[in-house]
């Protein structure tokens, strides 16, 4: 089973996770920029974080044979802090980077006017940089948040096929399925969707335009739930090809729209540095 996790916050995960993920078949990940748990208070905090998403973290992932790309944005929660809003001005230089395959996570947290402004501005950046967009949907008042997100997306003029509406569930999937946007599901213990529930959604709506992610981060989450979902699909009678479509070909197609997804030599053996293993030491 080859797995592409299209939404996982590896910065918050351990090296052991990379090893377990690689052993479970996770060959590629996308890490969206997000809220770190502790609020940031200045632009420099963000640029250091974004630099790590295009610098150290892809290197760390590569040591374990996991191909790494990122999405960059001012997240909805921190869009409400006037000290963080100038982050919007530094985003264009990150949206030019090879390893950045979308604008995200953007969208709503509490649906404030400040969030409206940041959301619309960043959809415009996605259009200007010819990149897809990853839209987070709120945990509170979710259905209305999804409806409002879809309205902002429609107004922005971005092509719906270049947008994923993420963290959907049994209720909100119905709002998105006919819009042409991609359907994102986070398999996350307790608060989001479980593997058996996702299987039921797939039975009802099919595998087209569906992205399944672990959204693993600093919360109670599990980077191997993508694999568990693939296994639950097989048990429920889906074919190997169905699983490959959902867990590999769909995310490749979605992020491939950036023109920057680099999956060359993905099946190469252990990474080496001019013949020497780069895993030799720390420093």
């Amino acid at each position, binding site marked *: 089973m080859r797995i592409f996790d299209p939404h996982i916050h590896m910065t918050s995960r351990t090296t052991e996770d990379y090893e377990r993920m690689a052993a479970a078949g996770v060959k590629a990940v996308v890490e969206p920029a997000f809220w770190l748990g502790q609020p940031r208070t200045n632009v420099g905090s963000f640029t250091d974080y974004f*630099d790590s998403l*295009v*610098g*150290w973290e*892809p*290197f760390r992932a590569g040591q374990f044979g996991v191909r790494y790309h990122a999405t960059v944005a001012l997240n909805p929660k921190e869009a409400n802090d006037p000290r963080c809003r100038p982050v919007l001005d530094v985003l264009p*230089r990150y949206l*030019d*980077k*090879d*390893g950045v395959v979308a604008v995200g996570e953007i969208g709503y947290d509490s649906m404030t006017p400040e969030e409206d402004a940041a959301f619309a501005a960043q959809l415009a950046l996605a259009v200007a940089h010819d990149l897809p967009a990853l839209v987070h949907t709120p945990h509170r008042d979710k259905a209305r948040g999804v409806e409002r997100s879809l309205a902002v997306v429609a107004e922005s003029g971005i092509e719906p096929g270049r947008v994923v509406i993420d963290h959907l569930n049994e209720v909100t999937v119905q709002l998105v399925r006919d819009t042409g946007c991609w359907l994102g599901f986070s398999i996350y213990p307790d608060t989001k969707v479980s593997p058996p529930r996702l299987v039921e959604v797939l039975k009802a709506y099919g595998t087209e335009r569906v992205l399944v992610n672990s959204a693993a981060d600093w919360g109670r989450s599990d980077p191997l739930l993508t694999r568990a979902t693939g296994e639950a699909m097989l048990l429920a009678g889906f074919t190997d090809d169905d699983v490959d479509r959902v867990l590999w070909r769909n995310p490749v197609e979605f992020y491939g729209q950036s*023109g*920057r997804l*680099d999956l060359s030599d993905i099946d190469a053996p252990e990474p080496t*540095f*001019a*013949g*020497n*293993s*780069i*895993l*030799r*030491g*720390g*420093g």
Partner: protein
Amino acid sequence: MTPNELRAALRGVPDPEWLAAAVRGVAAQPAAIARFFPAAGRRCGRADLPDLPGWTADEAARALLLATMTADQAEWVETLYRTGDAAEKRAVLKALPLLPIGAVGLPLLHDALRTNDTRLIAAALGPYAEHLDQPAWRQAVLKCVFSGVPLAMVADLDTRADGELAAMLAAFAAERRAAGRTMPPDATELLDRLATAAGREHHKEA
């Protein structure tokens, strides 16, 4: 290495038109490099260049863009490194010895040598490392041994290696032995060469 050699080695890139236009754009307007520099990887590819051992297409294209600038090179070297992703940083480091900027890029070497990214460490130890003072250079060589960067990547290794580096390597080898671990063969070979040279020196004095 000259800009002409870079240009010749880049003849086979997938999109030579783009590169030619970027070179013209940067020559006419230095600030244009800000958008061309990050795009060079996806436009020129990242393959090893057969005519330029040790260089990839993206590195060579970025070095060529820097070498083409007619003004403000020192400022742009700093900016492109500070705002670059890992591949852009590596390209700046490799371009440094080709540029008429003296030792201005030295802080970038220190920055790269503080990282744990072996590709940056290696790129910082090319010919431009002549500007590093001896204590910093020795630490950098030891860091290569520690982190698995082949010593073949270090410019002027044998002319610059000294008794103090030999002492540091010997101490490291002793720690490794005590831990039941091996030394990388290239480090052991360097230590042997330094010991032989020291013996010759000692013999001469006696």
